[in-house]
């Protein structure tokens, strides 16, 4: 298995591999993690075959080790994602992402009449359901479900 991965996206010496990202959310993950403005060496592959979902994506970021609260932001679009922490070409730690009970400034409240969609107010959504995902807006108290979740 690892041979195949190395063929798809070349290995890194030090850093983080984010695997099992649903292919359609690759660019959202890149944006959420701010990798589009990151000067580190980054390689990624997408539309790779996956036993879990139809197509998956993988990102390898050299010399970058994410904090938990930083990486948990991607749980909104890639809750199955797995992290491999690489030191000297070896996986030294594996991590899963966790859905946080409160997300601040990451996703939009779906209610067009919510104050957060009309004035400069940071969104604050509270987790009410994990499967499927549902968040209650701290301000307007409306519930945004998974299919309406929009990343800022």
């Amino acid at each position, binding site marked *: 298995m690892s041979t195949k991965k190395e063929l798809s996206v070349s290995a890194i010496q030090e850093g983080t591999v984010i695997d099992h990202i649903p292919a359609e959310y690759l660019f959202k993950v890149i944006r959420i993690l701010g990798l589009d403005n990151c000067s580190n060496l980054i390689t990624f592959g997408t539309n790779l075959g996956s036993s879990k979902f139809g197509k998956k994506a993988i990102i390898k970021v050299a010399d970058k080790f994410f904090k938990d609260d930083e990486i948990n932001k991607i749980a909104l679009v890639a809750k199955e994602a797995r992290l491999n922490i690489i030191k000297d070409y070896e996986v030294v730690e594996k991590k899963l992402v966790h859905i946080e009970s409160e997300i601040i400034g990451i996703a939009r409240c779906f*209610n067009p009449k919510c*104050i957060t969609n009309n004035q400069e107010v940071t969104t604050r959504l509270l987790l009410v359901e994990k499967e499927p995902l549902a968040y209650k807006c701290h*301000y*307007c108290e409306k519930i945004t479900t998974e299919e309406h979740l929009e990343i800022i």
Partner: protein
Amino acid sequence: MKDLSLVSINDFSKEEILKVVELAARFEKEPNQDLLKGKVVASLFFEPSTRTRLSFETAINRLGGRVIGFSDASSSSTTKGETLNDTIKMVSNYADLIVMRHPLEGSARYASEQSSVPIINAGDGANQHPTQTLLDLYSIQKTQGTLEDLNIFMVGDLKYGRTVHSLLQAMSHFNPKFNFIAPDELKMPDEYKIWLDSKGIPYYEHSEFTDIISKADILYMTRVQQERFVDPMEYEKVKNIYILRNSMLDNTKDNLRILHPLPRVNEINTDVDSNPKAYYFEQAENGVYARMAIIASILGLV
């Protein structure tokens, strides 16, 4: 000032609700008191609501306080593009308390986080209107002698009507039974039914407005609003189904009282007005006492 503000009915515990209801009765007995003497209350109505504003301003005046503010966003700096944050930051330096009505949902919670004085939410869009709920509870207590074990019928627009949602949440403390009467298009949303299930509170749904109301202690009528319907034909079909007429009250319980948040259009026929079971105008009057109780308890004056 988040903790002292009243933004959502869910901010109040059962004990706090009972305290307001009890205080409202005391203010009704002695409506003119000087508890707010020397205090300034800002009344910020970013959208007009004459009934709610007059009720609040009467409550403040009866308590001996002074009012500053505006009754319409067009006479405020909002038209110049000022954000809610800036208006609240400024006004909370002038006043001891802010009463706010705003068309955007969640605006009251946000204002309470930015303000250095307590905020009372006088309606934030279709979200919350907690003082309406507290005056409804006071009206129920006053007419039934209790809030416990009542059979409450809600009629009309149960989908979008914020007053019925807040009342349902507040009454859940008092072992109620609910009956919902609404057209399919305006049924009580699932999230409230799931919530009632989780609390073990019984409810029954009906689409016909018939003699089932003979079991009711409270009949809470709401307006079926034309603007809620995508298809005007659907509105035409249902608009005249949910009209309460005096003849429908013949076999109802003696203690039944009819509530309505007002304004009504045609959902309560005027022949009901003279029936002793009609209570909606008294209900509006109770709003003044309930708001006096809310203001006094939020400012710690009682």
